[in-house]
């Protein structure tokens, strides 16, 4: 049962990874990259490592996504100045 859940989460992670590459909108790519980290943290939790799961959830899907969004905002702002 647990193996099935892990494999299912892994398949969704792969799908999100491909989505992050092929999405036309950068915003959608950033969010699906955050989804990968969130699902990875669920897998870590199932496999019995809550410490790593906490790090992955907070840094991977929380902070990194926000920093990417800030960076995207700055890059767009820079473009419109030209």
């Amino acid at each position, binding site marked *: 049962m647990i193996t099935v859940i892990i494999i299912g989460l892994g398949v969704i992670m792969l799908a999100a990874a491909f989505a992050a590459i092929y999405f036309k909108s950068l915003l959608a790519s950033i969010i699906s990259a955050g989804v990968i980290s969130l699902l990875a943290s669920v897998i870590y939790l199932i496999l019995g490592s809550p410490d790593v*799961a906490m790090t992955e959830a907070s840094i991977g899907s929380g*902070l990194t996504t926000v920093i990417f969004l*800030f960076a995207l905002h700055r890059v767009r702002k820079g473009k419109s100045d030209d």
Partner: protein
Amino acid sequence: MIKNIAVLLAVAGLLVIFLPVISGFQERENLNELAADYVSGSVNELGTPNVVTSVIVTYRGLDTLGEVTVLFLATVGVGLLLKGRNEDMLLISSSELLETTSSALVAMIMILGIYIFTHGHLTPGGGFQGGVVIASGFLLLMLSSVNTKISHSIMNFVESFSGVAYVGIGVAGIVLTIGFLNPGLLPLGQFGDLFSAGAIPVIYSLIGLKVGSELTSILVTMRGE
């Protein structure tokens, strides 16, 4: 076309590298010698219920110091690259709903962060996780109101103070106990209590403050203030 072929070749190469690793994988029945030593030492010598914390703070303390240094350098780099570009400040007009809710939530998020790093030796989590939670509390504060000003000098003070204190405890470990970053400075105390496990909670709290202030200053710089 050539690009696609190159990507396919790279993926096939990865497959060739990792296939033997996956096919030969067997779950271990028991811990290897080093891991078993860590598990028993964590409980018997350091009095730390959370084995992960005893490895991060004590057995691999020098690596953690390196990690904290890397994070510090990243903060300095972001500050240096984005210095003095105030004109493109990120102004988000937030709703009143978000503003009211966040003023109630921020205090709770901060307390959760402090709980996570002070209880690092008892429950899962520790300095890094608690620091990130605190930084996310400050992020909520920044997103909820345009007028939020977070003082760079306070962040810098907390960051430098905790960094110096962390290394100071490490050096005191050389003088007073058997080695660098040894937690034997303080008494072991009652197993499972908040004030136990020697200097481990102190070190992890300092790491939490350091990580929290560093990540907050990264966010403040990225926001453009």
